[in-house]
């Protein structure tokens, strides 16, 4: 019963992350990612009993939502046309979840972080909107955090690594939000293919 419960919890986590990548309305995608991040913090707290997870991930959630909603209000709520549409993306995300579960023999923790990292990479590669790319990057970071929990058996230092990664992500999100507004003011677009002229 416990394992089914755990599988459900992690599947919910991965599905929320995947939905944040697929949904084309940026405000909704940001809210979904925020819920995903806060959810991860809660899960980490329940699984490890370590309050660091809940503190940092609630902070990440807040520090993501606040600047990114600020950015979206100053730019556009509609995602730039992605390389692959919503249907194809949904299929790929379901495929990622299925393959990772099969590969890790339905282990919820391992397949969870692999799915999250793979979905984050997919988001960074296949979405053209910078906000979506930022969500993809954050999803990878959350997957890596879950991975460090998996590593915790190897040494006591892993929580410190997670702490450093989380702190860096918070700072990076603030910086990215600030840069995105600057890019939009200069190029009136958030399409990563159109802003390639940023090269010096």
């Amino acid at each position, binding site marked *: 019963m416990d394992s089914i419960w755990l599988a459900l919890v992690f599947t919910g986590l991965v599905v929320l992350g995947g939905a944040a990548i697929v949904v084309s309305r940026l405000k909704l995608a940001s809210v979904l990612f925020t819920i995903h991040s806060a959810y991860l913090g809660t899960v980490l707290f329940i699984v490890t009993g370590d309050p660091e997870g809940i503190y940092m991930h609630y902070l990440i959630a807040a520090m993501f939502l606040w600047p990114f909603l600020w950015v979206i209000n100053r730019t556009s709520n509609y995602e730039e046309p992605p*390389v692959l549409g919503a249907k194809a993306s949904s299929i790929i995300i379901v495929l990622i979840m299925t393959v990772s579960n099969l590969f890790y023999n339905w282990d919820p923790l391992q397949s969870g972080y692999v799915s999250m990292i793979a979905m984050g*990479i997919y988001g*960074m*590669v*296949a*979405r*053209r909107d*910078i906000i979506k*790319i930022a969500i993809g990057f954050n999803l990878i970071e959350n997957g890596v955090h879950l991975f460090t929990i998996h590593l915790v058996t190897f*040494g006591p*230092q892993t929580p*410190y*690594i997670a702490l450093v990664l989380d702190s860096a992500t918070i700072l990076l999100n603030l910086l990215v939000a600030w840069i995105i507004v600057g890019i939009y003011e200069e190029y009136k677009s958030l399409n*990563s*293919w159109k*802003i*390639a*002229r*940023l*090269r*010096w």
Partner: protein
Amino acid sequence: MTFILLTLIGREVVQAGEAKLELAWINILGTVLTFRVDSLSLLFALVASLFGFLSILYSVDDMKGKAGTGRYYALMLIFTGSMLDLFLADNLLLFFYFWEVVGLCSYFLIGFDYSAESSRASVKALLITNYAGAFLLVGILLVYFLTGTLQFAEIDLRLKEPMLAAMIVSLFLVAAVAKSAQFPLHVWLPDATVAPSAVTAYLHAAAMVKAGLYLVVRSYAIFSHYLPAVSYEFAIATVGAVTLTVGTMAAWVQHDVKRVLAFHTVGQIGYIFLGIGLGTTLGVAGGLFHFLNHAFFKGLLFLCAGCLIYSTGTKKLDQMGGLFERMPLTASSMLVGALSLAGVPPFNGFASKLMIYEASLEKAMVTGGALGGVYVLYCILAMFGSGVSLATIMKVINSAFFGQLPDRLKTVKEVPATMYTPLLVLSAICLILGVAPQLALDYFVGPAVQVVVGGGVKTTIFGMVTSIGFYEATTIAALIFTPLVSGIIIYWKARPRKVSPVEAKYGIFVGGEVEKPYIDMEKVKVDAESFTFAAVQTFNRFYRFMWRGGLDRIYRTLARNFVLATRHVRWTQVGVINIYSVWVVLGAVILMVLITI
């Protein structure tokens, strides 16, 4: 506040030898991240914190009303904090981290106003210092693989392959040469003067360029006894001697006040390298003392230059003139800084330069033979550099403060109090350290020299004693100032209260030039170019070589070959984040495959 805290810690360091803060972190690397204050790091950190404060105080009025002040102050504070952390780091990993943060902050601050000129200068600084920083990273990795630790204190004890120490310090030296703007990687520093004045002052006096110097001194302290002294020390001394010559010669013919000072920084850091490269107690003491002095007089000169630019709106010396009466505090402060830089007694620059000259001669006597002759040549170059510095800085003083006041500068007045207060503080320090160098040598430089070479500097009540001479600075200062002050008092007391009838009718007789044409010095302006005309003629070949491309040809050839060598991989740089993500993923996959194999 940081300066005060450091001063308090300094007392502890002097009494106990060092103060240490240990923060256990990623033990998986077999290392802990530690901050340590010893006499050497204290010397550098005190200067960084003091200048951080003075630069920010100066910025209050200098940056008033300009766009992006929030960004400016945030970056300046990160810059100052990172410099302090760099000097206090007791771990190479931590040191490298702050080394890069410092580079990034300077990149943002040099390109602060987003103009094409500042963008180019900032990218140039970033590229040169970061590519050279890669050498530091390789050196650090080599240290880790050889010793299994990155702690400064443990590297020395665990080094099993002393032969590789030479390779490590060579890698460190390349990084330091770029960061400290030494020949031939000095080209980024003069362009970096487009940054706001306080940033330039901080960058030159206590930050970036001093980071490289600290790396040289610290690695010298760790590795010196493993190295073939002749080659390593000789390399540092040669870099210093060549740089001081090129730097001061280049400064001589500049007409932009900030570029003059920037080339002088290149030259003065050359002096410090020369002193440290001599490897003797006197040489290292001279080098470290000159570091301290240079921080004060160069910081002072850059802030004075900032005041000139703030008041006149130009950096061109040819467009200034006659400002002494309008800006007496700035002019007096700049004169103090200039005389210190030129190494005129009794100012602080003289004391440290004298130590370097004497150390060169001492080294020449000890070494003997052809190599001894080379050290004599270095001493002559150092003295020649001082002469050139004096000529250059007199050009700056003359062009800015004497001669005719241009019409557009008639309304110029002295800068606000927040801007001239740092000038007065720094001028006072330059004078105090010049009149009583024994204070700095006893309390700051001496203990730092102890850390580097294990020796000490002998001081007396009124000065210092070296192995080949002595310098009674306080006595000499008294001898200089007593007649000077007496003369001023006599002049003041004996000045004519009223004009005599004859003088009123015919004017003051000064040699018969009553009738025109005569030269009225107050209406004549010797511009900066005319001032250096004779110099350029004398060293015609050198300057012609430089103006025709000179060193630039070497850089251009290097750049062209680099572009040719990388032409097959340029197509990967498309500027699209998605494509870069694909490269990152591919790289990760290749790494995983390699690790698995």
